[in-house]
């Protein structure tokens, strides 16, 4: 009887330890999954980028790199790199102006919300940053969705006759929480 009670007590303890260990492994794996990154390389444009492994990546004729968090509800947080050939004399401000004119035609309530700020990229090169916002509304006329405010920032650097724009877009509600992901992306980006 006493031996049975002792055995039962030990089994409870063992079970508890296994559960705690399992939860620990689970949290470790989860954190690992959340912070895990993948590498993206584009030889043509000379881009090497590290992006969250859970995000979906794509490229097209209009952008060589785009990663989106499709697991996110609502607007997927997006990091996109576009490259356009420009004259050597162009300034980042002119690139921003061109982007603004294009976006005014296609984005609702597009508004630039900061003046260009000069920054230094991790590789030592200079770049300019502009923040903006717009309303993202449903394109399908048969669906009902309240437009959401999308906040974004463009980081523009000009090198080798190309204007490279690194854009970060996120729902205004989650912008600050997701900004660190973009900052880490910029830290590891090789152009």
């Amino acid at each position, binding site marked *: 009887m006493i031996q049975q009670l002792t055995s039962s007590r030990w089994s409870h303890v063992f079970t508890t330890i296994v559960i705690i260990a399992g939860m620990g492994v689970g949290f470790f794996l989860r954190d690992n*999954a959340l912070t895990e990154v993948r590498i993206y390389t584009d030889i043509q444009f000379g881009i090497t980028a590290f992006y969250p492994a859970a995000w*979906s990546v794509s490229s097209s004729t209009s952008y060589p790199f785009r990663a989106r968090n499709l697991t996110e*509800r*609502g607007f997927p947080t997006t990091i996109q790199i576009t490259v356009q050939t420009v004259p050597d004399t162009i300034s980042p401000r002119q690139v921003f102006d061109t982007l603004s004119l294009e976006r005014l*035609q*296609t984005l609702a309530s597009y508004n630039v919300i900061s003046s260009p700020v000069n920054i230094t990229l991790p590789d030592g090169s200079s770049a300019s940053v502009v923040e903006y916002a717009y309303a993202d509304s449903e394109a399908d006329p048969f*669906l*009902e969705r309240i437009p959401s405010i999308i906040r974004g920032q463009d980081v523009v650097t000009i090198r080798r006759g190309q204007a490279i724009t690194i854009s970060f877009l996120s729902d205004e509600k989650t912008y600050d929480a997701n900004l660190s992901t973009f900052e880490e992306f910029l830290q590891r980006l090789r152009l």
Partner: protein
Amino acid sequence: MKSMPLLMLFVLFSLTTSAMVRAQDLFDVERSKRATVFITQVENRGATQITRCVGSGTIISENGLILTNAHHTVRSESCPGDLLIISMGITPDEPPIARFRAVVAQADRGLDLAVLRIASYIDGRLINPETLSLPFVSPGDSTGIQLDDTLTFVGYPTLADDSVVTLRGTASSFLNEPIPGIRSWVKFSNEIPGIGTGGAIYSAAGELVGVATSAYRIFPGQDASAANCVRFQDSNGDSLVSADDVCIATGQPFGTIRPINLARSLIRASLLGMQILSLNQGSGTTLTSESTKPRITRIFFAASLNDAGMPSSVISSLPVGSQSLYLFFDYENMTPETIYEVKVTNDGRPNRIFSLEPVRWSGGQKGMWYIGSTNQVWPNGVTEFTILVNGEIAASQRIIIGSADEATPIFSDVAFGLVDNNGNLLGNGYILPTGGTIASARFIHRNMAQGTEWTAIWYVNGTEIPGSRQSNIWQGEPDGAATTSVEAGSALPAGSYRLELYIQGRLAATSDFIIAGIPRGAFADVFPNPRFVGSTSSLPPDFTTATPSNNYPDQITALYALFDWQQIAPGTLWTLRWLVDSDVIYDQTSVWNAGENGVAFPVQLTTAQNVPDGTYRIEILLNNIVFASASAQVGIGQLPIDLLGQSEGVQLRGTIIDAETGQGVSGINFILISQDFSAAEYFAARDESMIYALATTDNNGVFVISRPLELSTEDNEIAYSAVILAEGYLPMSADGLVVDEETPDPIDLVIYLTRD
């Protein structure tokens, strides 16, 4: 990565499919309703927008082409708006909500048909048409419509207060006019609300076969109630909505339908993004001013038409059981904005079947016109035709149907030509070359007793030719063929000619013909040297020196068709037709106004980008006879396969529901993986090139996959995979989603997500 097979999705897919297969009808009413739009033409007056004209329309391509009428969309005197607003209901049972702006892609004001292109969102943001995935119906074939076939109208019934309605009826008659010809109109047995003009007509099999068409406008000094006038805006800014404000003509119930085949060239040109423009300033229809009142004269009946659209003979009665009757009349001062209507009564009772409700005039400014039908029994009794122009009675004529078949003297089947030495009539019957001093007419005569008085009168351009009137006493056989001629002192000039034959003072037969061109044997050469000139410049080349070719590389930005002309009188009706790979993309009949002789009449074909590869052909016609044609090849000489293709397949949509709350979940991404990859491969790579389509749920958890799912066949199975990844929920995936011809369209899925 946590994932579990999406068994539930499979089960629901199967259940939904089987249930919908049972429920599905040949005619997908919901799809046709979703493809229906309400069109508002708006006039910008500073900060105020005034509604000017309204109507219905139908989306015919997923990237936003809309088929509708021209009268309420193309800018005109009665519809002077400069903005087209496209509204549609979120669900088919709701009134429309303004969603888009559109522009006119192609239009034919005479046929009263137009194709619009959605160009921007309602707030003015531009749309890339390739990103649109709107519900649409593909145009069908209207030649298959038979009398008494069931037809269904789908359109809006009121000024944006109601949802889309469907009205069933039958094809009660076919009415023919010179332009566009046989089956100009199909009559619908039911009454379509006036505001439904531009709406769709579907066959019993669900094919889009026609466009409901009727036009009303309010004329100064006339009772506006006929046009069902509605005022709801303070357009003059006097803080009152009164009789001084803009009135919108919403029309009266009607049953006139333009067959869809008449819109084919407009639709093709719209799909190809082509614009065809005559660069000759003198060409086109001369519009008369509104102060010049239209006139209808010389109204008579004929039992049938010949190939040139001329009356076989003039009649005043028809025997019992007659199946063909045409009303002919001369018209002048008509414009594409003229509203024309034919009311038919039988023994005083209105006959809707053969009446034509108010429509836009589709002819020229001046000429001879007819309206009537064949292969349909006309009722016995006194049938009266009353022609109304711009709301006023212009002419009327009666005929007795059911009278005894009396042996009255008859002239019929007049044809023209040059007579050879053997007395044979040479030429094509209705177009004679210039240069001759004699024109002859051959006609059939029956029951002509000897001694009967008869008269022939010749006209040129509406004026009697001096000395041409011949009053004779019949001396020949009662039945047979006879010839009469007109002879001038000098060569007969180019122009439009007419012969009237009278028996004892009664008009017995009449026909028109044209003298034009230089003689080539018995035939006329009117439009010599047709040719093509390609250009890579945005400016037209010098047409007199440009070197023509029939082979161009695929980098030209414009293609010009040129032709010379000789001895064609101003005022002559002519037709220009463009074809691409044997399909007509432009077919326009207008009045010749470019002078009697000239070289290098230019017609320009342009597109938004380079002229696509294809074989281009022009045809120039007089009286439906091709007088000149030329072809040129661009690139490989064949249109890209998918350029005219419409995407076909099954639409997938659904609702994603929280299994715990039973409520729809918003903002969830439904990822459809293309056939080449599995869900597991997507999980491993997270590469968006594997995604076939992506949809996000709305506030109610509803999602719609924008690209149609391709149908599997016995030889080619296309199996899609689906993935749902959402923070806070267990991921779901499924492989092997297959659709085929048996699958209902659309597929409606209900997916339950479990919280993690």
